[in-house]
């Protein structure tokens, strides 16, 4: 009787591996190969192998876009964290029923495609949009404020689209936070800041880091947000990558940029695991890191 279960388990694993291999590994290997071929206007890519595309990553022009992209994504992540952390904290204090309702309300908008929501933001931020009509109508400003097609609009859009990805891991972290630890800290004479600094923050750090990672990396690539809200200037790395494939037809360079982005993600994930280990070690309880 054990045998069918056994085969079932292996076939499930085999299927998963096959799936990952076909749709994750193979495409990425192809992208990697393309990144070391030569661009060609006639055939998209041709031999010989070359590292030219990789060298171009260090072109000051693209480095600058990279830094700017990093800055916008970093700002987005920071704002998401500042908004998401208190929200997750409050959420964790609430009775289970309320928590469910609030989480549900946060997720409902995400049943609508993010592209459509981005268009909606575009309409709201325009010179005759809701925000400016309100500002001018209430006499707060005489002229409409230029909100749309600015870096502000891009960050606003990114924060709006990515906020749940920050909140969800944080809520999970706060869930795991043992209230008795806070009581113990209070008994030992710790003020609110000390309790936060030495108990809450370290124990929710994995959630903070996980949230930051899954906000930061997509933010670098969401080219449609910067196209629609930023006025189609090349603000994000994603715009440059898209242009290489769709407009300039330099596939190797586009591939090299994609791989570079993936490598950045891998590096950040590694940092996450490294940090996680360190935090566990300092945690005292559940100390399995040593």
């Amino acid at each position, binding site marked *: 009787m054990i045998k069918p279960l056994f085969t079932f388990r292996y076939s499930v694993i085999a299927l998963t591996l096959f799936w990952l291999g076909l749709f994750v590994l193979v495409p990425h290997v192809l992208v990697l190969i393309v990144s070391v071929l030569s661009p060609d206007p*006639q055939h998209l890519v041709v031999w010989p192998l070359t590292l030219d595309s990789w060298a171009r990553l260090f072109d000051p*022009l693209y480095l600058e876009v990279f830094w700017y992209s990093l800055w916008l994504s970093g700002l987005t992540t920071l704002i998401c964290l500042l908004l998401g952390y208190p929200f997750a904290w409050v959420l964790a204090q609430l009775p289970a029923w309320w928590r469910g309702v609030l989480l549900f309300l946060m997720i409902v908008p995400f049943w609508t495609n993010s592209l459509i929501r981005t268009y909606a933001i575009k309409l709201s931020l325009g010179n*005759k949009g809701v925000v400016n009509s309100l500002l001018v109508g209430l006499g707060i400003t005489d002229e*409409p404020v230029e909100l749309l097609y600015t870096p502000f609009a891009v960050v606003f859009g990114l924060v709006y689209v990515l906020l749940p990805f920050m909140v969800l891991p944080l809520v999970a972290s706060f869930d795991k936070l043992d209230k008795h630890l806070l009581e113990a800290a209070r008994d030992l004479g710790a003020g609110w800041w000390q309790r936060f600094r030495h108990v809450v923050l370290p124990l929710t750090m994995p959630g903070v880091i996980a949230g930051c990672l899954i906000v930061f990396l997509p933010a670098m690539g969401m080219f449609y947000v910067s196209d629609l809200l930023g006025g189609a*200037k090349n603000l994000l790395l994603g715009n440059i990558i898209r242009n290489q494939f*769709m*407009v300039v*037809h330099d596939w190797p360079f586009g591939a090299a940029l994609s791989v570079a982005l993936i490598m950045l993600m891998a590096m950040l994930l590694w940092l996450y695991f490294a940090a996680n280990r360190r935090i566990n070690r300092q945690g005292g309880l559940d100390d399995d890191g040593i």
Partner: protein
Amino acid sequence: MKLPSLLATLLVAAATSLYAEEKVVVYNWAEYISEDSLAAFTQETGIKVEYSTYDNNETMYSKLKLQQGKGYDIVVPSTYLVSKMRAEGLLQEIDHKKLTNLPNLSISLMNKDYDPGNKYSIPYLWGSTGIAVNSKEIDPATIKGWADLWDSKWQGKLLLIDDLREVFHMALKKNGYSTNTTNPDELKTAYEDLQKLMPNVRVFNADSPRQPYLSGDVNLGMIWSGELIMAQQENPDIQYIFPQEGAGFWVDSFSIPAGAENVENAHKFIDYMLRADVGKKVVEELGYSTPNGEVRNLLDGKYLNNKVIFPPAEAVDKGEFQKDVGEAMKLYNEYWEKLKAGK
């Protein structure tokens, strides 16, 4: 006995599926056809139209290149892309004998050097790229040509078409060069001039350039003639200016990709679009110019006398039609990347 009956079933299945797949796959510019005419075509011929759109030549080219000319039966490239795609074997010859309405087309836009004898392309619509001004906000009389867009008082105010050839056209014309230049020095001058223009740019748009004008987000910038006509239907204050240095002119043509699967239907579709009554509807709805002489005979005076749709001869003489620039495209692309990154 089993095999023949199986064969018969297969044949029937094949026949029904063939019948079911009487279709034509059209890949056209966004907002570049009258929706009614698609439905009417299906009603008349029984051929289903699978329709999808792109917002710049390069996107369509990339897709077709990647699929080696397969997947679509009709595409609508601009002139310079017709010559490029033809040279790369991405297009197939169009059988003129199957196009009964071909004589409707006026001679002046036929047989150009991008496609001698129109073997690979049948002109669909043409138009110009000029300047749009919201006359409520800006006095149109103060805007004479492309050079006026460089004025520093427009900082962060302009809309540019998100298309490198169109944007370079402005700077090249401003400096008195050809829009089809392949001379690196001229290109460099144009690029350096455009660098000075970039601080004035609020937004690049190519999917629907009229929208930012209508929503009041921009009051000055580039626009396509047809987009302007469509904008005026909602807001008559938006006006068109033929820049004194010369507007950009382009022709978009029907072509059949080399790997098209429904070649016969593609011909039927082109022939249908060449019909005078169909062409009339397209002009009335989209506001682009037609190369179809019969359509002009049917059109109302208000369309025929509209200088945006049918520009005066002097404006056409000053302007220039786009051609393929060959290898120089690489340089164009390089400069374009820099400009869009704000360099």
